[in-house]
């Protein structure tokens, strides 16, 4: 009985100490590794409470949350893709594509418009997923093609112009405040809970991490690898479409050349900073949400204190490097 505990502990210690060299340090880094994003977030909040004027106000808070909502939505899909050892670069363009389909079909009533937007997002995701799962294209290439082509298509469908959306039901999605909570925040929260549930409790979630952790082993355990990959990219497309709808509703118009631009980079940052390794095999949904909040808070901090925004970008870059450094140990073992 004594032996049992000892051996496993020995392996654990061997691994940890090879990685960082010293035991104390490895204990600290492994603690931080798991919770770094929370630590950084809390630290930044405390910092802001101390120095940023009017930080602790409803207006600042709700602004922050509204701005982060589309990022959270697309990050959830990107987190799933990264969990399978893939990636989805196309989320920003899919947002734009969905955003254009909303005004195009809203003439048939707002439910049709929203349905069309979601459908086109899911379709774009299915194209990504088919390329990855069945054709065997590398996820980064498949979704890069969609990143480039998707926005092009969006502009073609829009005829190169801004399309105004004035349907009150749609606008409410971006601007209403039931119980004082901004609608985009509610949408993002519900989506995060649903995806978190998918990851934690469903068989689909198990397949996602198994594929990312060891695709051959997953296949040889009878897992539906291709179907799962297809579903992951379809879900990511659907979430991007939802983000596109929310962003359009906020703006009151569909702007295919600007909506969702570069959001894929924020999403990847949120996912990685949140503790999901780029090598797949794990998905941290709460971490991803916190990661998105953290980078938004960095931007807010710089803007609110009249610091040049360019420095916010440098700071964010530093955060990314720290996150990747903290994760590095895992693969090396």
């Amino acid at each position, binding site marked *: 009985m004594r032996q049992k505990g000892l051996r496993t502990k020995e392996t654990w210690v061997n691994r940890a100490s090879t990685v960082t060299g010293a035991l104390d340090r490895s204990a600290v880094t492994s603690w931080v590794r798991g919770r770094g994003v929370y630590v950084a977030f809390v630290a930044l909040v405390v910092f802001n409470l101390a120095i940023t004027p009017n930080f602790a106000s409803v207006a600042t808070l709700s602004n922050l949350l509204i701005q982060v909502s589309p990022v959270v939505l697309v990050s959830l899909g990107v987190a799933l893709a990264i969990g399978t050892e893939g990636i989805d670069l196309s989320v920003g363009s899919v947002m734009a594509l969905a955003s254009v389909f909303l005004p195009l079909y809203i003439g048939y009533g707002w439910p049709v418009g929203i349905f069309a937007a979601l459908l086109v997002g899911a379709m774009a995701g299915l194209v990504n997923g088919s390329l990855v799962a069945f054709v065997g294209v590398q996820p980064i290439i498949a979704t890069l093609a969609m990143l480039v082509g998707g926005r092009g298509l969006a502009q073609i469908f829009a005829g190169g112009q801004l399309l105004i959306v004035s349907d009150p039901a749609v606008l409410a999605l971006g601007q209403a405040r039931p119980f004082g909570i901004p609608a985009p925040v509610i949408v993002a929260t519900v989506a995060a809970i649903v995806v978190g549930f998918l990851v934690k409790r469903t068989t689909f979630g198990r397949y996602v991490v198994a594929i990312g952790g060891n695709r051959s082993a997953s296949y040889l355990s009878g897992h539906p690898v291709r179907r799962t990959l297809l579903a992951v990219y379809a879900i990511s497309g659907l979430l991007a479409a939802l983000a596109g709808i929310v962003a359009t509703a906020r703006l009151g118009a569909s702007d295919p050349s600007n909506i969702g631009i570069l959001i894929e980079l924020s999403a990847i940052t949120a996912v990685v900073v949140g503790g999901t390794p780029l090598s797949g095999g794990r998905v941290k949904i709460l971490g991803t949400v916190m990661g998105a909040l953290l980078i938004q808070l960095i931007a807010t901090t710089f803007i609110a204190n009249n610091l040049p925004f360019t420095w916010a970008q440098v700071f964010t870059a530093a955060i990314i490097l720290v996150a990747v450094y903290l994760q590095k140990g*895992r693969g090396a073992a």
Partner: protein
Amino acid sequence: MEQQTPILEVRRVTKRFPGVLALDDVSFELRPGEVRALVGENGAGKSTLIKVITGVYSPEEGEVFFKGEEVSFSDPRESQAVGISTIYQEINLIPLLSVAQNVFLGREPRNTFGLIDVNRMNREAAEILERYGIRADVTAPLHSLGLGVQQMVAIARAISVDTRAVIMDEPTSSLEAREVETLFGVIRQLREERVGVIYVSHRLDELYEICDRVTVLRDGRVVHTGELADLSRLQLIAHMLGRELTEVEAEGATGFGEEHEAAKEPILEAKGLTQWPRLREITFDVRPGEVVGLAGLLGAGRTETAKAIFGAEPLDSGSVKVGGDDLRTGSPGAAIKAGIAFLPEDRKSEGIIPDLSVKENIVAAALPRLTHAGLVSEKEQDQLVDRFIESLGIKASSPDQPVRELSGGNQQKVLLARWLCMNPKVLILDEPTRGIDVGAKAEIQKLVDDLALDGLAVILISSELEEITEGSDRVVALRDGAVVGVLSGEDITEGRLMEVLAHGGDAAEGSENERDVGE
């Protein structure tokens, strides 16, 4: 052997990890020109000792001497620089670079312009390989060579520096018999050159063939040091396991017991499996309660046959029947549903999902059964997991421990649990005991035996003749992707099997007839 300054000496070394005494007052010395076997079960302290010698760890107590001088390396590069080379089980080379580039990786010869002198590099690499009797085109990319040759290149790389001591950690685990011979040639050459070799292996045959002396570690202590020739195999195993000799004798060298009563009707029929050119018209069957061994040299098509039956390899033609019903080939999912289970050869790359927990690894194949309305039933999952952790004696701190932290033997048990919890009709085991310690090996062999007694049909693939001949009720011999003979009953001996593998053809006819009569 005359007394002389040892190349390497470890004096009264103690290494602690929190809560564990990994090395307890260990002394060890390696003389020039000596090949020393370092053996012990997993967790005995072999790896820790190697890591102390090479400078990965620094010991709490005790000293390490190299060529008579006290040394304290702070990382493996320092020990490498003074002449201690380590060759690991896994090949740490770059597949896309040429053989010569790999041999000289990080220390390429330069010309006067500071550029890599390709001609000189190729010439010198060829000389080095030649010296150790390794035949390979030095300009070919590494990945185009067989695993065995790649391992040789790794060895050539390690010893082409001015090496005084070489540590080989299970160097033969991916080698064929012929390649092992080449490796032994290299080791003999090193012995000639008065280099000291520490040889870690689980394969007793190899130890007795190549090693002079042996050090046995158990629970962090040296329990025996001496001439290997003075020690019988049973005595050696007894030292490693810490058991009485009589006990080991009673159990035999493997964990396998008696022959099994097989049913009359086959549960699995493979007919004419063909995947040109690797598999040609492979036909055999397995009955419930029977262990059928698939024997053959590396590359004979054993693994391909197993994977084809399991649906993980495409087939040009051929059919598989389970319980009389045709199986849709080409889909592991369909094979699993039909009751086939497959334990792959390469535990790391095809078996475990390293970051997932023991629990999640065990239920990986059973997920569809544990799923209700898309959700995993935690309760049913935990019951299943607890049952198998207990019945297979899986040693883990908790079911939530990541499986990568377990020892090789325990990982293999996790994978066995993954399949046994499916209640399979046919269990295919591809090298089930490779790279795991003696204790776990015997346990797994015993388990296979018990499973067959309970009526399971087992297909056993193993490179160890002993395992195949002692474990199987029938042996299907493969060569170059075709069945060259079937042995059963009294015929299953190592000698007979080697004869069939070597000569094939005629023997196959005889066995075929015998089998026809039997059915």
